[in-house]
């Protein structure tokens, strides 16, 4: 509660009064502060991005990088725990991190292992059933080498596709009806139903950010299946941050 005594200094100030230009300056100043705060808040919201996992720290030049990731039907953490997501294992601690920003060294062979825990379906375009851009344009699915997945007979959960590098690997989906289906990530490759897909590729000599995405419209509930997690960093959209 404000007392009369507390009000008195205010009254005296008012009696003294601000000039017209002074009042305009105060209003403009306050307006500028409000605009600044609004822009700052908006930028802070927009600029929020998932953490970056570095495969450069501790990497010996000339040796291959081993990148281990998993694709989950539901990430299980973060602001959208139900969204389909990648998780990647940090080379330093071995912990699963919910991110799709992966820092890789230039001109280096990357040996990738992806544990695919999500279910699948036919590709919207069977073109993405081909394996391209990897060593020998091939990958392995639970130990068997393949170059093409016929998604109409063997449902595909996701694709790991880096357009600028010509890389595309279809990741076969599991059946939700089978025992051990992982409902929410991070999933456990030791105990839960999954496919293991491996492949290798070489990072370019030129540093840069190379975008990867999934060509299965796995953004359920979004228009054409392509919204939400399909286009959001940290879920199915990401970057290979290739650095020297």
């Amino acid at each position, binding site marked *: 509660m404000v007392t009369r005594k507390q009000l008195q200094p205010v009254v005296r100030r008012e009696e003294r009064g601000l000039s017209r230009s002074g009042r305009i300056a105060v209003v403009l100043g306050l307006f500028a502060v409000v605009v600044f705060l609004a822009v700052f808040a908006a930028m802070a919201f927009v600029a929020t991005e998932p953490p970056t996992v570095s495969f450069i720290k501790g990497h010996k030049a000339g040796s291959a990088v081993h990148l281990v990731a998993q694709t989950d039907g539901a990430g299980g953490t973060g602001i959208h725990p139900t969204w389909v997501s990648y998780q990647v294992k940090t080379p330093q601690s071995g912990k699963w991190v919910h991110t799709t920003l992966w820092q890789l060294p230039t001109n280096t062979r990357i040996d990738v292992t992806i544990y695919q825990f999500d279910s699948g379906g036919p590709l919207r375009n069977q073109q993405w059933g081909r394996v391209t851009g990897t060593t020998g344009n091939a990958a392995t699915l639970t130990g068997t080498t*393949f170059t093409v997945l016929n998604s109409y007979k063997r449902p595909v959960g996701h694709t790991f596709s880096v357009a600028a590098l010509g890389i595309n690997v279809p990741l076969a989906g599991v059946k939700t009806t089978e025992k051990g289906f992982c409902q929410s990530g991070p999933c456990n490759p030791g105990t839960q139903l999954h496919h293991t897909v491996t492949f290798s590729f070489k990072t370019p000599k030129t540093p840069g950010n190379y975008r990867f995405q999934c060509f299965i419209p796995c953004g359920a509930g979004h228009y054409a299946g392509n919204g939400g997690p399909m286009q959001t960093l940290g879920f199915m*959209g990401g970057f290979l941050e290739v650095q020297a």
Partner: protein
Amino acid sequence: MSEHAGTSGRPGAGASTSSVAAGTARPLQDIWRIVGIWVALSIVGDLVFWFVAGPHVPPGDMTSSASGAQFDFNVLFMVALPVILAVWTYMGYAVIMWRASRPGAPEPIGGPRARSNLKVQLWWIVVTTVVVLSMFVFGTVELIVPAGAGGAEGPNPIWTPASKNVLPIQVIAQQWQFTYRYPTFGGMETSTLIVPDNTTIAFHVTSLDVIHSFWAYQLGVKIDANPGIDDVGYTTTNQLGKFTVRCNELCGIWHGAMYDYGKVVSKAQFQKWGTSTARATAANTKYLPPFAWTYSPTANGATGVTAANTSGQAPFSKIQTYGATTKAKKVVKNVQTSTTTITTGST
């Protein structure tokens, strides 16, 4: 306020009578001066533009539609330049020669120049009408004669190329990459757009999800990609080189990343590339939906849910005349892959 100030708009215009007299004494001289300056500037400006800037105006001259777009822009610019110069010349002349402070300048209000002049008005209306209608006719002819000039004509093109030897290439847009199907080579699909030189190409553009736009910049081709629609556009290549393909319709957050590069190569190189790519992609081509002009975004199964061909074109008649079909079909049929193709299996 004095009478002078009220009529002339400036105080102390005591010499207004003599000014008007001086100003009206030489109206023809002013007009001929303006016309002379304008004609000289227009000729110089148009010639400089045509010979110096014109050949570099985008999108260049890699195809008939690109060079057509460049030619049209240059012609329209050369028509527009004299109009702009007429306004600027008149304005500049008025500012310099008819300044109120200049001795002998006419009064700004009143006087013969401020009165309507039927002849001038008629000339103005006739000349501007002729200019605008000429540009309209020119633009329409330039759109019709080169078979749509690289623009989209929908599924039933009314302006088709004179050549009977047209190479069809299907452009399939999907968030966020274009792929290309070549019915000429057994319906193979690739992520790379390669086209032969000196060839008339029919781009059949469609989408599997949202609306996109296929914009092959240096080819002078821009065709909307709509799901369920076979949008057709034509061009004729006439120069080897690399070109950029961009999506030109905001199609989602990664719209800006939806681009790739294509190449115009010689016919021999194109045949070689097509045959080897058909062989390399054969293992997957047999699983693609049968070639159709459109594909349902929700199509599941190798049969492919396809829309009726409403273009009036038989998909393979023109391809056969191009001469690669038999060879490509044989390649696809007889392909021997040493790799494993997984078609069945359990989890």
